[in-house]
């Protein structure tokens, strides 16, 4: 059953990603103003969506872990945080690649960029905590608390950064959203790409979750074995 699910997810995400690649590079018309570089947008936005989805899962899994106390919620939170970090990095990287020819700079302190970057730092801290602290029920609780606090902070970050930029007027008024996707083929490509990334995210999440569950199981078996041996020697 588990094997089937994994294989199905892998095949679907593979096919969907191929379709998305085909649409991005062949099917969709080139944007008039920005040229070829605009096509990165069809990967940029899905990455952002997946990153935010992952961070939402971290918080929900954290709350569920504190409430129900089952290890699987902790593992889900960990897996989602790792993937969220990967996709958040991809958002920043693809955004920079797009911004250099269009805005003339790799980085600008625009409100969305700043918010994404702060989120990236937040979850970098979360992963550092997990990397430093190892694996125990205590750390699982700490991580859950941190995940919840992090998500609570998101609306305040968004508001504060937006206010910060309105007081200092943004140098660059162009925003991706305002370019509009005039051609219906652009909308179709974006939707397929979003779907492909979401399925791929679910697949990766499933793989990571399975690995983490195995790790927990191995740790438990080791502990039991050690207890058994200690008993045998006595």
């Amino acid at each position, binding site marked *: 059953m588990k094997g089937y699910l994994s294989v199905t997810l892998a095949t679907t995400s593979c096919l969907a990603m191929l379709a998305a690649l085909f649409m991005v590079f062949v099917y969709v018309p080139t944007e008039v103003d920005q040229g070829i570089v605009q096509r990165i947008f069809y990967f940029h936005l899905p990455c952002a969506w997946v990153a935010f989805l992952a961070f939402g899962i971290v918080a929900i899994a954290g709350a569920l872990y504190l409430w129900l106390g089952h290890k699987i919620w902790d593992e889900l939170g960990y897996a989602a945080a790792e993937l969220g970090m990967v996709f958040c990095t991809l958002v920043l990287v693809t955004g920079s690649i797009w911004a250099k020819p269009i805005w003339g700079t790799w980085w600008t302190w625009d409100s969305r960029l700043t918010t994404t970057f*702060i989120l990236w730092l937040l979850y970098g801290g979360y992963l550092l*905590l997990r990397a*430093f*602290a190892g694996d125990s029920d205590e750390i699982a609780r700490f991580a859950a608390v941190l995940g919840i606090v992090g998500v609570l902070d998101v609306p*305040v970050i968004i508001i*504060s950064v937006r*206010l*910060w930029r309105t007081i200092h007027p943004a140098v660059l008024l162009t925003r991706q959203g305002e370019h509009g996707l005039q051609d219906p083929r652009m909308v179709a490509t974006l939707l397929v790409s979003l779907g492909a990334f979401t399925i791929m995210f679910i697949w990766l999440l499933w793989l990571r979750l399975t690995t983490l569950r195995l790790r927990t199981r191995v740790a438990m078996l080791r502990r039991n074995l050690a207890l058994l041996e200690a008993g045998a020697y006595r």
Partner: protein
Amino acid sequence: MAAFLNFSPAGGDQSEGAGRGNPFFRSLLAMLEGFGAIVRKDLRLEVRSGESTVALVSLSILILVVMVLAFGPGGARRAEVAAAALWIALIFAGTLGATRALLAERESGCIRGLLLSPVEPATIYAAKLAVALIFMAEAGVAVLVVLVLFFNLEFGGGLLRLIPVALLGAVGLAALCTLLATISGRVRAGAMLLPVLVVPLFTPALIAGSKASAAVLAGQPLSAVATWLKLLCAFDVLFVAAGYLLFEHVILED
């Protein structure tokens, strides 16, 4: 001061007399009593050793020295640099202060005694928050005085208006630091981890606080920075509430 610090069990008799029959009132009084006892204990410890005060005040002054050396004392952007210096000093003094307040408990397993005492974990959080805030306020006063001297500011209305801004920021920072220092105190390389966890979470208050401070130092009235003050208040309420509710999950041991 001495009377305040002199903890006596007389509080227990009072609560029994006043709160008999009303469970809510009684539990509130018990909470306040526990809160007062922990705060008094920490302050007495501080009055006798003076460790945290010395560390925090000297750290903040050193940060200001670095800022003055880097940016120069005068110049057109004096208010902004002074505001930046204030907030940098506040962040580092704040993380250090909160760590100190919790570290004292961790040494020789004092925290276990606190947890065994009939005090709610949330009350311990409130007390530690108050102590961290008092440490931060001490450092803040030192920073303000030195700030005026170093940056040739005027002792006047601008400085007075800076107090509520810095105080609102300090409440949020203390709330965040108390919660996260409990976590970082328990893990390897925790001292290194704490700023990495605190600073990104504190960014909204940092933006609001430093913008409001710069405006106020440049001579604007508090009404001009009302938006930032509201944001600071929202941040404080959010994180004091979050810390109060979540502290139980980080302080209890397996």
